[in-house]
């Protein structure tokens, strides 16, 4: 099942030219680009592994694309996302995040129902 989270995830996957253009946009807004990867795409898994440090003093998207290529080489079957961090005081948060790499075969998200007090039910999801 296609995992959808962050920007553009309902669109077809971005190709490298499009990713470059997005990174250019990020740099133009003076946000820091960083890469994160994860093998666990559960929606509740907020904290992915960092790939290197956030790139605060980048001027051109090529630098981030080099890192992305490197990360894809090492983790071809991981989910990889590009994040844009705004360090402006008052924001200091991720402003943009989108998936740039998916495993060839994406896991299914399975829903588990559990009976609870009375006739109520609890739901849980786990990627399989």
């Amino acid at each position: 099942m296609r995992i959808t989270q962050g920007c553009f995830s309902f669109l077809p996957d971005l190709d490298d030219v499009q990713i470059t253009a997005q990174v250019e946009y990020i740099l133009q807004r003076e946000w820091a680009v960083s890469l994160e990867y994860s093998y666990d795409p559960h929606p509740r898994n907020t904290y992915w592994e960092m790939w290197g440090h956030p790139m605060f003093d980048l001027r051109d998207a090529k630098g981030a694309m080099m890192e992305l290529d490197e990360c894809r080489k090492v983790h071809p079957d991981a989910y990889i996302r590009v994040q844009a961090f705004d360090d402006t005081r008052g924001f200091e948060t991720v402003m943009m995040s989108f998936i740039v790499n998916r495993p060839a075969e994406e896991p299914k998200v399975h829903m588990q129902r559990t009976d609870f007090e009375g006739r109520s039910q609890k739901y849980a999801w786990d990627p399989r």
Partner: protein
Amino acid sequence: MTDDAPGDTLKTIDLAAEYEASGVREVLEELERDLIGLAPVKQRIRETAALLMVDKARRDMGLSSETPTLHMSFTGNPGTGKTTVANMMAGLLYRLGYVRKGHLVTVTRDDLVGQYIGHTAPKTKEVLKKAMGGVLFIDEAYYLYKPDNERDYGQEAIEILLQVMENNRDDLVVIMAGYADKMDQFFSANPGFRSRIAHHIDFPDYTDQELLQMSKQMLATQNYELDPAAEKAMAEYIALRREQPHFANARSIRNALDRARLRQANRLFTESSGPLDGKALSTIGESDIRASRVFSGGLDVDHPVQKEAAE
């Protein structure tokens, strides 16, 4: 650049219009105006600019598709304007569309080479990422290679650099700078660099005349001036300073002027008894320059023993 040509490729190209439109003219004029002396360097840069413009025109017309090798080496003594010219070169390459962002990242060995195993590659890559889309200026590049230590990590940085210089020619231009003789040694020990660097530009030392002109210009930008006697003293100073060790052309002059300003301020402070006018505040006198240690046989930091003997 012209819209009238149908199809993918242009039929004719107006180099003069291109020259105006790209803003190359401004860079070259700035070069001419701001840099004193350095005639051979200016000549080389004009030639390079012409070559790049023609090359760009050829590419626009579909006559060639290869990105030319733009990596350069600047050789010359310290203080001959290598960094300044590199900055202008970055502007030039940006206007001609050979680099995307046109910023200059200046690094030395310390920024590229790590201190322990596995430290160098990430450090070098970090710098390269920063320099992408612009110009990477490696000052004192010959330090990267230390022939006396075969386990030196500099070699690792060199390998990464060579690889990027070859594979990312569209993304980054590398300029290596250093003393002429040491750079020659460096290139002969690393033939990979020589073949990847297309433009070798040699920076000559400034003449005394040029340095004097430069010192007046430096002072003028700070709203100072030399009185005639001080100008004469400055000319003598330059001739004397050149003979002494660690002479760094324009940089030595700038430092000398900074010290002269210090002395001038001190003189005004101790000697003045009444109100000072603007002229007094902005004139460097002969005594401010004559007080330099250069006139009394050199900087004593260089000759501590000699100084004691003299006293």
